[in-house]
């Protein structure tokens, strides 16, 4: 059951990141358009944030790793997206008036709005690997399995958001839905661990 939660969190985190990346294009379009530069800025920031997240998550996993902490990372990533929902428009208006070049404008906006939550999301995968691996011989096996689950989650998050969610829901409704699932999953994982310990 412990493993099941680790996989669930990793898969959902993958879903969450890509759903967000897709919506970020929609969020930036009113101020910076839908030119190739905007996607360039968005993808750069997401990749950079994930790379740093992997580094931090790996480091953190060396210190007494628990499922509880993994759930806390998921929760934290969700909380870190709240500024986007609440003050995203203000931030975008500010960067719009500050930077006129659509390349650096979108890069800066994406950095402001998406960098922190994506760094935290990036921490999930290496941390989850540590929770799964108990034998060195099986480390590659579990790392592969985890990459599979989280990247599969990313694929699902991309296609569901792009093809279906935007048809039925408003952007903010989609974001709130994503946040609610993150919240539920982390709370369940947190309480499960408590029962386990008692």
């Amino acid at each position, binding site marked *: 059951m412990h493993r099941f939660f680790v996989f669930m969190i990793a898969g959902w985190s993958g879903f969450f990141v890509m759903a967000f990346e897709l919506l970020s294009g*929609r969020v930036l*379009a*009113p*101020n*910076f*358009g*839908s*030119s*190739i530069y905007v996607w360039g800025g968005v993808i750069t920031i997401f990749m950079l944030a994930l790379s740093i997240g992997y580094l931090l998550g790996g480091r953190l996993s060396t210190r007494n790793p628990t499922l509880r902490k993994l759930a806390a990372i998921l929760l934290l990533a969700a909380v870190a997206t709240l500024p986007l929902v609440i003050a995203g428009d203000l931030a975008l208006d500010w960067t*719009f*008036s500050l930077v*006129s070049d*659509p390349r650096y404008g979108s890069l800066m906006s994406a950095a402001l709005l998406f960098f922190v939550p994506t760094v935290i999301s990036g921490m999930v995968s290496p941390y989850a690997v540590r929770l799964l691996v108990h034998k060195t011989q099986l480390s590659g096996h579990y790392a592969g399995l985890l990459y599979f689950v989280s990247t599969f989650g990313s694929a699902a998050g991309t296609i569901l958001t792009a*093809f279906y969610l*935007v*048809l039925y*829901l*408003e*952007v*903010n*409704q989609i974001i709130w839905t994503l946040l609610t699932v993150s919240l539920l999953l982390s709370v369940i994982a947190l309480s499960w661990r408590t029962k386990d310990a008692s």
Partner: protein
Amino acid sequence: MRLDVRIILAHVALALCLRGEDAASETVIHSERSLYRNITVYEENGERCMKFSRLYAGNRQSCVLLRDPARLIFAYTKMMLASLYLAPRPTKVLILGLGGGTLPAALIRIFPDIEMDVVEVDAAVIRMARQYFDFHPGARVRVHEQDGRVFVKRAGRTGAKYDLVMLDAFDLDYIPEHMLTREFLQEVREVLTPTGVLAANTFSSSRSYAHESATYTSVFGEFYNLKRTNRIILAKMDGLPSSEVLAKNAKSIEDKLKPAGVDSGWLLSLFSTMRDWPKDARVLTEQYSPSNLLNRQ
């Protein structure tokens, strides 16, 4: 009954013949992949066209008649010029979407001293308009390589005003979705003078027709709806002029529009204010704009 069938068969046969002839006479002049799409310039039946595709069935963005470039080929271009019936003397114009440059070129021919900003996101389209469609406007016409939405937003911030704004930005499928929302149209309002005119090129038969109509109504109120294959929306900031005023304006610029092949009787007959969409159609906003998806269904 039998006669009808024969007539239909004859038409089908004729259509097939014409198609075959078309396909045979199409000559590709230039084809390239830009940052955004495939663009092909080709000639057939004495016309030079630009399309955003490499396939024959690809959609045509612009066409010019080689022996008479002043003569407009597409009905939609003439219908966009119907905006002049709402206000016949524009001095400063904004056009989003360049294509082969037929629309700005037509306006320059009608008003040689017109001041104009043309916005086109694809640098390759700008280059090809110059090279293959002889688009060499004078110093009073500026071409901006930029996203149209961003240009309008920035123009609004600097307080720039236009007495005519023409929305003609299209991708392969349709209008980019960030240029279909209520927020975008509000930004367009910002850059119009108090008596300014808006002309928007859309499609008549798309799933988002009702959504678009509701969105334009929410920002501009009542508008003139001109429908053929394309649907042109014409709105005016200080309210729509009556049909008498339209007819008077049409008369006053009839001579100027004649070289373009515009028949004012035909154009005037297309003006309508009838609401042919459901009342409860949902307005497209920044939060909800699945129009491009709707169009593909």
